[in-house]
């Protein structure tokens, strides 16, 4: 229709849809920048053990009697409180020296910078794995409901209706309170109570309807398309049609969902950890560090501010990337960013 497509088809070798989408994405400067920032954050968090070793600090045990060298002077990490009655201790504030309590210490004298990096690793891991869990179950349910129809569709759709109407945080809270204490035992799968898989599983499950419903809608339309009807007419087995004909056609939608779900999962994980039903101590995530910083908010605000800023930057990068991916792959889709 447009001049652009005319010139595209005029080139000798026509590019495939993926290459076209990739070119479109790379032309989107905001999306490329966002991708760069996100990769940078991932790399920094992966370097957490290196930082901790170099700073010679253990971010998971309390070190109340540690001493810091600043400008040739020895300063205790926990200073005698100067506020109120002078009772209790206040952790040291930011020194702004890399590898030397850069962002200060928390209530237990642990290096906040090292915890921030380790926490980021957990936050990213949970957000990513929960996305995998969501997309897997959503695809399974969406494909089954849309393709087989009938009683299977009715059962799955009604189940999704119920999950959908259930406020995400309330469902997550209900699941967490039961599972955090005792873990989950489903016969084949056993998840220990302190395991990171618990928040991954919980967050992954609560967002399934959010993805499954649009997938089901697409499969429903594909089911009536000529090439699928032809395959059915030829007697191709259902699993083969699903894998070879239908799955590739919903894959763009799934890819668009990846950064958007990661952003949403990251916010959800941090909120659950903030409510103390996500990542369990001594493990850290950005949410738990914000919670640690809550009691120090007025004296040492950096403990709570730093992980929050990290969340905002990461989620913002993922959302910009999601916007760009949607425009590149699936411009007509109605996928909306940030519903929780």
């Amino acid at each position: 229709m447009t001049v652009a497509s005319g010139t595209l088809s005029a080139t000798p070798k026509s590019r495939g849809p993926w290459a076209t989408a990739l070119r479109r994405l790379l032309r989107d400067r905001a999306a490329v920048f966002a991708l760069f920032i996100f990769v940078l954050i991932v790399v920094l968090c992966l370097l957490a053990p290196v930082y901790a070793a170099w700073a010679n600090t253990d971010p998971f045990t309390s070190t109340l009697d540690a001493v810091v060298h600043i400008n040739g002077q020895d300063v205790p990490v926990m200073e005698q409180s100067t506020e109120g009655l002078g009772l209790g201790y206040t952790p040291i504030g930011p020194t702004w020296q890399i590898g030397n309590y850069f962002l200060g210490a928390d209530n237990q004298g642990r290096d906040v910078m090292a915890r921030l990096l380790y926490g980021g690793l957990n936050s990213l891991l949970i957000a990513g794995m929960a996305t995998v869990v969501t997309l897997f179950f959503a695809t399974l349910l969406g494909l089954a409901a849309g393709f087989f129809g009938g009683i299977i569709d009715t059962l799955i759709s009604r189940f999704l209706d119920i999950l959908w109407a259930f406020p995400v945080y309330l469902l997550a809270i209900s699941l967490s309170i039961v599972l955090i204490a005792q873990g989950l035992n489903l016969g084949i799968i056993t998840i220990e109570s302190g395991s990171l898989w618990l928040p991954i599983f919980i967050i992954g499950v609560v967002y399934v309807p959010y993805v499954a419903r649009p997938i089901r809608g697409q499969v429903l339309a594909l089911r009536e398309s000529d090439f699928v009807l032809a395959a059915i007419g030829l007697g191709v087995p259902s699993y083969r049609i699903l894998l070879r004909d239908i799955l590739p056609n919903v894959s763009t939608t799934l890819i668009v969902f990846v950064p958007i779900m990661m952003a949403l999962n990251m916010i959800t994980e941090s909120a659950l950890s903030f409510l103390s039903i996500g990542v369990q101590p001594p493990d850290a995530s950005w949410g738990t560090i914000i919670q640690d910083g809550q009691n120090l908010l007025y004296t040492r605000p950096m403990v709570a501010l730093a992980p929050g800023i990290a969340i905002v930057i990461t989620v913002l990068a993922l959302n910009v990337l999601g916007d760009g991916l949607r425009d590149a792959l699936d411009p007509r889709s109605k996928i909306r960013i940030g519903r929780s």
Partner: protein
Amino acid sequence: MIFALLQRIAQMLFVMFGISVLVFLIFFATPGTDPAARIAGRNASPEVLEAVRRSFGFDQPMYVQYLTMMKKIFITGDLTSFVNRGWKVVPAVMDTIPVTLSLVFGAAILWVVFALIIGIVAAATRGSWVDKTLMMLGLIGISMPVYWLGEVMNLLSQNRYHDTWIFSWVPPLGYKNFSDDPKGWFLTLVIPWITLSILYIGLYGRVLRAAIVESLQEDYIRTARAKGLSETRILLRHALRTSLVAFVTLFGLDFGALVGGSALLTEVVFGLQGLGKLTYDALLNLDLPIIMTTVLYASFFVVMANAVVDLLYMLLDPRVRTA
């Protein structure tokens, strides 16, 4: 019309039933857990465990247990907390509802007004730096965890800048009843309202802009232009009008997400004794009867709110009635 109405109500009842079963199963039938031990709390004595077993009837079949629990929560309302023995849960939940509604309604007014302004301005200046800045700010608003924003607000308004003219009017954290002290009620809620609404201003501003820009492509807009109407009139009277349909639908959906999520976090950060704060306190004490009740009441409220929005929608838009 009547049929569609009844159908929607039936669907609402089905979803409510489904949620109650789901909550029941999560709390009582998760594999490998003893519900009595959890309800009784940590370090419960054998007598307490036995009392819990008997009062909840864990020896009885599942459906009897389910019916007993529903009766205790919704009909007789005599479910009691196991942490503070004898504390009735249902009246405690009822006490929190005005707080949560005050918070949510105030924030909703803010976010609708500001989202409309942002959406319209961005659509009117689409492609310009004003549009791009507004959309970026909206995205930043969406990307901020609401509880963290609340803490930053507290840090600024209660501590760092509390002694300056900007925030000296901010009262200490907590909730004041509207009937006792309307001015105090308003002042304590201003900062929580702003905190809670920022996410939704970003979300709705972006959605509204997209909807307006899309409807500007429609044929009837071309007709309006051909008639010689001014751009302002086309934008406000023609394009905005159809775009508001999407806006209203979203409102119903997000209202639910709000009562069950963001409001909970906002209440916790600002120490407002609402439904969310009650849930949070129960969470810290592992007070299961309270969590069960708040979860059920909140989700029922959400489901009903969604149904009401759908019904209003049906009244407003004749096309939906037959769908």
